[in-house]
């Protein structure tokens, strides 16, 4: 009976995908920077994921959900018509920018002061794409480089250079703010 098949599929999907709801929601919050847009995107992500659950072959559920969420968020970016905020699938000019410009300017002895989570979230929010998503996937969602590559559809080498650049930018922003607040 189709109804019960559907239900069993949904039940399997629930058990496999719902434990990652906080992870997916976290990524959506950082990508969209808006709580209610993030909720809509996550719901759409789970709807699409359930629809395509038959073709899901693994191995890992988290990167698969993230890949779907990314597509949903890109559609949202397009809707907002902020083309500069869209996540590029191919390495753009930004990827080729040397990463060490900011780093060298900072005194090596300086130690970062702890910040409250709100201030750090703001600094992460301000990172440009595609660096922000790479950073969030690694540092907050705890994906391996290979899983990030899977989720964003880029080679591992690209993931590594994006991550290095994201961290350099974040550290520069951090130092600048500390300088500012002195």
């Amino acid at each position, binding site marked *: 009976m189709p*109804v019960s098949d559907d239900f069993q599929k949904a039940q399997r999907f629930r058990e496999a995908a719902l434990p990652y709801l*906080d992870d997916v*929601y976290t990524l959506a919050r950082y990508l969209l920077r808006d709580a209610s847009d993030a909720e809509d995107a996550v719901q759409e992500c789970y*709807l699409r994921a359930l629809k395509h659950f038959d073709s899901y072959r693994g191995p890992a559920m988290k990167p698969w959900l993230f890949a779907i969420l990314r597509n949903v968020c890109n559609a949202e970016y397009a809707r907002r018509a902020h083309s500069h905020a869209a996540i590029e699938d191919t390495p753009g000019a930004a990827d080729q920018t040397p990463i060490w410009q900011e780093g060298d300017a900072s005194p*090596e002895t300086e130690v970062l002061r702890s910040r409250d989570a709100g201030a*750090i979230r703001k600094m992460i929010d301000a990172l440009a794409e595609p660096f922000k998503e790479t950073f969030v996937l690694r540092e907050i969602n705890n994906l391996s480089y290979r899983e990030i590559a899977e989720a964003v559809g880029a080679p591992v080498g690209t993931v590594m250079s994006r991550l290095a650049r994201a961290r350099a930018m974040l550290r520069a922003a951090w130092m600048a703010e500390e300088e500012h607040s002195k």
Partner: protein
Amino acid sequence: MTCDEAKILLHALLDNELDAGHAREVEAHIATCPTCKAEFAAQQEMKRVLADASLRYSAPATLRARIEASMPQARPQPSRRSVLRGFAMGSAVSALAASGVVAVVLRQDDQQRILSEVVSAHLRSLQAGHLIDVVSTDQHTVKPWFNGKLDVAPPVIDLTAQGFTLVGGRLDYIDARAIGAVVYKRRQHIINLFVSQTASTEHRPPKTQTMQGFNCRRWGERGLNFWAVSDIGNDELAEFVDKFEVAMKANVEG
């Protein structure tokens, strides 16, 4: 190894992503290059500070409920409208019989609404900080806590020896009325046992329904309505209710 390479690879070292051979190469470079050494130390420091901050978000319970509601349900109930429409097509039925059917349909609808409220209350309780008002594994602490908060305190029965650990109690609201919830744990799964007073003293045998992926077993006994809700399987929930009923009977008679 050049500094350009090291500036990228030191992150992979930091993230434990390098094989032993490459890790040694990067470490060797860092050991001899002050610039990369400083960069590594700075990034290590930042990673440490970030790890201490809570940067994750928790999905709101309403979002979870929205997603659950959008998924196929176990036993789709015929809606009131569709039952009435089906009914209207049968022509040789008296108005009296019709009103009787409507009453039956409405009553089921009402139960369905209360079931959905019970499941919502269960979902709400799973949010951080919402599960338990009185935390105790001791029934003699949980039971008196309800006194004065409700007209009738719910029976609080320790089932730890039977494999269901009592973890506490909570005041909740179902059908716009305050109601007691006794909270149990089975492995990592939460069971909410909602108890409300009812005018009917007849025994209603337990019946399980599924909604939004949760199993709900409800029954009536000694003027009380019970709903046990959890994401554990049907069998386990039935086992819980059986053990609870046996223990309650023993309590009353003993």
